[in-house]
């Protein structure tokens, strides 16, 4: 019997489970132009991450259970005691080593792919950003700003030049790379404008703090505004200020926001550790960070918590959105896998941050123990086009759009 002809698009579409085509991503005035092949490179790399998470990680887990943990127990006459022992034991296992090598090189390929697209059109992109931002006093840059070691020493997520490096006057290269090709890592879980995290925060606030009507909102480490702009959109009467270390991020953020018709924003290049020269005490109703704390250091986190306390008016709120903390009931395998980004994807503070007692740090910063906030949020996206993180059962340790909220009412 001849093989049946392939079924047509409808059934393939209903059967398909995976990242959307990159072509559904939302474009704006400074979004880089992407050729057919550049789009397909991004699609391939997003599928690589999906494949590694959905089809290779189960084998890594099986090898851990069958070989790594029993082997450690036999050698040491005791079980693996913590996530560091688990990770180090796995390094000698071919399943973990092969998965790690592939995951690392997928990130490196993604950076090269995104940088190629942006650098080849850098002059045009910078001109577009300049046309949108020139003379706009809502963008305040500080060329003398010293980049702290926790950002300067290691390029986060293997992104060459990180958030701050500039290659030309008025440069937006690294902002454009970060924006358009982040899809490779998120696989569309953050939605059309990579803003599912921001929409999730807004939804959480509306549900839990229905009477909250902020006028002054501050997002620390807001980069190109992915998670920040939904706040500005949700509260049009408010003014949102984004603080970031990186000038290429902030230039790009302003151009992007304006081209999307969002005008109630300001952008300030500064270290969030010390904003005394920029903002007086009690200047804000709301201080927000989204997937930011893990890129700091212990000292910086404490400084930033203290700054957020200083900057909030009484009754204002601070919310930090992060991947969940390590707790004793989280299996050591999961902890070790979540630690991968700390050791192998240039996110050096990830591991230590996720074991910190954040409640204690909030109290240390001056917040009252009985006014702390805890919650869970999932990326909020257009479900017609994008996967729903709350329903997605694929575990891509540390990268899924499912986060924990820790915060406080000042």
């Amino acid at each position, binding site marked *: 019997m001849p093989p049946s002809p392939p079924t047509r698009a409808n059934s393939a579409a209903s059967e398909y489970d995976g990242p959307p085509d990159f072509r559904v991503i939302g474009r704006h005035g400074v979004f880089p132009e992407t050729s057919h092949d550049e789009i397909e490179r991004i*699609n391939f790399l997003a599928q690589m991450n999906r494949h590694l998470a959905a089809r290779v990680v189960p084998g890594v887990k099986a090898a851990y259970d069958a070989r790594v943990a029993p082997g450690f127990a036999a050698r040491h006459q005791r079980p693996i005691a913590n996530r560091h022992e688990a990770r180090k034991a796995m390094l000698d296992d071919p399943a*973990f080593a092969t998965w*790690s*090598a592939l995951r690392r090189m997928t990130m490196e390929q993604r950076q090269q792919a995104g940088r190629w697209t942006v*650098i080849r059109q850098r002059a045009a992109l910078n001109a577009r950003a300049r046309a949108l931002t020139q003379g706009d006093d809502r963008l305040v840059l500080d060329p003398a700003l010293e980049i702290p070691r926790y950002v300067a020493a*290691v*390029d986060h997520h293997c*992104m060459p030049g990180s958030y701050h490096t500039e290659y030309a006057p008025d440069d937006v290269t690294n902002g454009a790379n970060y924006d358009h090709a982040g899809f490779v890592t998120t696989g569309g879980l953050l939605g059309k404008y990579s803003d599912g995290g921001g929409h999730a925060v807004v939804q959480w606030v509306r549900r839990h703090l229905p009477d909250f009507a902020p006028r002054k909102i501050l997002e620390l480490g807001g980069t190109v505004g992915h998670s920040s702009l939904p706040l500005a959109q949700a509260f049009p009467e408010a003014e949102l200020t984004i603080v970031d270390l990186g000038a290429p991020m902030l230039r790009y953020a302003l151009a992007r926001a304006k081209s999307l018709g969002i005008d109630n924003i300001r952008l300030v290049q500064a270290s969030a550790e010390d904003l005394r020269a920029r903002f007086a005490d009690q200047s804000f109703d709301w201080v927000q960070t989204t997937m930011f704390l893990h890129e700091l250091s212990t000292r910086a986190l404490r400084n930033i918590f203290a700054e957020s306390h200083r900057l909030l008016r009484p009754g204002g709120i601070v919310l930090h959105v992060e991947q969940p903390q390590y707790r004793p009931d989280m299996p050591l395998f999961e902890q070790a896998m979540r630690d991968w980004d700390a*050791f192998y994807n240039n996110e050096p503070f990830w591991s230590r941050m996720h074991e910190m007692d954040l409640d204690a740090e909030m109290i240390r910063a001056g917040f009252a123990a009985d006014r702390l906030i805890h919650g869970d949020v999932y990326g909020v996206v257009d479900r017609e086009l994008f996967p729903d993180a709350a329903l997605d059962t694929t575990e891509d340790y540390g990268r899924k759009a499912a986060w924990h909220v820790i915060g406080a009412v000042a």
Partner: protein
Amino acid sequence: MSFADALDQAGAKPAGKRPWFLEPQVEKVLAITMTLAQELAVVHQRADTLERLLRAKGLLAEGEIDAFAPDAAASAERQMWNQEFIARVLRIVQQDNEAAVMPDEATSGEIADDLAEPGEA
């Protein structure tokens, strides 16, 4: 010039010493292989795009590619392309197999030593 900048800078090494998970030479080969897999996917999608555009314009009928039967000359050209391609890709295997039956073959450095005059280092 933007192309030259992209060529120079797109593959910049990120700050922070790179971890190696496999024997480094093996991991390099795997990295090269995965980049080629990426580029193969890109070429595949480009061919698929072309087919869909040709179908949409009525230049290619449904099933025409699967039903395609090259004539003898085209068939020979295509099979020769396959042979050439495989021979290029597997050159190292072929050369290593050649070497396997030449256990006494000298290296270039050994020949250089042989050719050296007395007193030459």
